[in-house]
C-alpha cells in the first residue's frame, strides 16, 4: 500500500512515460511552441503508442512540437482552441484522418480547471448565440444566458516547468506557464519535464506556482530547443 508521492524523480523519459498507452487522452502544455515539454513529446513518439486523443491549445505549428505527433500519425482526435497556420492539422482534418473539436480557449482552460477541482460542470457566457451552443444546455441566470460546459479530464498530462523540486513543486517561467498548471490538475498521471531540478526546501513555500500534490513524476531535461514561432523585435535606438 504505497501512495504516489514518494520517489517521483525518474531517470529517463521512457520511465517517466510508463503506463501511457494507445487510445489514451493526453494533455500537453504549451501555447503553440512556447513552453513545450520537448523531451516528453519526443518520448511519446519513441514509445510507439497511437490513437491518442490530444488536448492542447494548438497541437503544434510549423512542423514542430506536437505537429510531430500529427506527422507520426499517432493522434486520432484533437481537442484544441486554435489551428491557425498548423498545416499538419489542417490537412489531416480535411482528409478525415483526425477529428478536431474546437473549443473557445477560456472554456477549454476552465474545463480543465473544473476537472482538477472536482467540479463536473459549470455555466459560462462564452459561446452563447454561436455554434458552440450546439448540443449544450442553455440557461438564463439573473437575466443573462449561459451554456453548461463539462469538466475535461485526461489520463496523462505532459508538461514542462522551469524549476522543480523532488516533491514536484513547480515554478514556471513567463508565458511558458499557460495551460500547464491546470492540465497537471486534470490528469490522473502528471509528468513534468524539469529545466532545473532542485532539492525540497530550495523553493520557498510561498514561491510554489503549483503544488507537488498534482505531480506524479519528474524527469530532468536541462537542454531545450525553444524554437521561435514569430520572432518579432524592434531596432534599438542609438545610444541605448
Amino acid at each position: 500500500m504505497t501512495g504516489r508521492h514518494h520517489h517521483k524523480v525518474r531517470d529517463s523519459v521512457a520511465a517517466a512515460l510508463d503506463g501511457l498507452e494507445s487510445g489514451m487522452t493526453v494533455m500537453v502544455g504549451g501555447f503553440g511552441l512556447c513552453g513545450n515539454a520537448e523531451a516528453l513529446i519526443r518520448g511519446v513518439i519513441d514509445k510507439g503508442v497511437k490513437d491518442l486523443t490530444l488536448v492542447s491549445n494548438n497541437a503544434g505549428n510549423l512542423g514542430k512540437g506536437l505537429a510531430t505527433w500529427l506527422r507520426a500519425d499517432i493522434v486520432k482526435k484533437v481537442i484544441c482552441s486554435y489551428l491557425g497556420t498548423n498545416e499538419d492539422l489542417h490537412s489531416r482534418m480535411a482528409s478525415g484522418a483526425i477529428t478536431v473539436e474546437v473549443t473557445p480557449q477560456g472554456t477549454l482552460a476552465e474545463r480543465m480547471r473544473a476537472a482538477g477541482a472536482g467540479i463536473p460542470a459549470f455555466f459560462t457566457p462564452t459561446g452563447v448565440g454561436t455554434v458552440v451552443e450546439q448540443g449544450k444546455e442553455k440557461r438564463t441566470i439573473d437575466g443573462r444566458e449561459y451554456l453548461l460546459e463539462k469538466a475535461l479530464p485526461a489520463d496523462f498530462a505532459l508538461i514542462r516547468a522551469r524549476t522543480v523540486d523532488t516533491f514536484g513543486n513547480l515554478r514556471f517561467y513567463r508565458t511558458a506557464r499557460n495551460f500547464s498548471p491546470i492540465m497537471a490538475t486534470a490528469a490522473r498521471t502528471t509528468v513534468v519535464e524539469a529545466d532545473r531540478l532542485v532539492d525540497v526546501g530550495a523553493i520557498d513555500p510561498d514561491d510554489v506556482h503549483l503544488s507537488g500534490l498534482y505531480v506524479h513524476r519528474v524527469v530532468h531535461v536541462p537542454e531545450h530547443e525553444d524554437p521561435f514561432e514569430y520572432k518579432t523585435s524592434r531596432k534599438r535606438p542609438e545610444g541605448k
Partner: protein
Amino acid sequence: MAYSKEDMARRAAAEIPAGSIVNLGIGLPTLCADYLPEGHAFLHSENGLLGMGPFPFEGEEDPQLINAGKQTVTVLPGGSTFDSAQSFAMIRGGHVDLAILGAMQVSARGDLANWAVPGGKVMGIGGAMDLASGCRRVIAVMQHATKDGEHKLVATCTYPLTAARVVSRVITELGVFDPTADGCFKVIELAPGVDRDTVAKLTGAPLV
C-alpha cells in the same frame, strides 16, 4: 481621404481610458499600442500576461515570452504572469475593461463575427469568443467593406457569430459608427473627405 491603418489604430487608441486594462486583438488592433502614452493603460495578453510591453530589442527576443499571436514581446515593470484559467477568469469575470478586436462582420445591433468564414478553412476560435463576451467594452476595428464592395457592417451577420450584441463601436477607414438597439449604425464621425452617402452605400444597415 479615408483613414489609413495608422489613423485607425490612433483613433482606436483614443478610446482607451487612462488606467484601464485592455486586450488588443491580433493584427491591426495590436498597432494601437504605438499610440498610447507610456503608463496610460495596461495590456492584457490572454496567454497569461498583464503589463505587456513592446517588441524586444533585436537580439533580446525570448521564445518563452510571447503574446497571444505568438510574437515575442516584453513585460513592463508591474507586469504579472499567470496560467490560462486565471487569464480567462480575468476576461470572463469582467476585469478587462476593453477589447479592441478585428472583425469580418459587425451587425447594426452589435453582433460580432470574427472567427470563421463560411466554407473557409477553420482557423479555430482561440480567445475570440471569451474576449467578445467577457470584456466590459468591445470595439471592432475593420475595413468598412470587402474589396468587391460587399458589406461588412450589416443588418444581420451571415458569418458564424463570435458573440451577440457585444460591439459598442466600430472604427473603419471611413469613420466611427456605433451599433444601436434598434438596428441602425449611428454615425459618430466620418473620416476627412468622406461623405455620408458613400458610407451609406457601403453599409448594409441604415445610418442614423
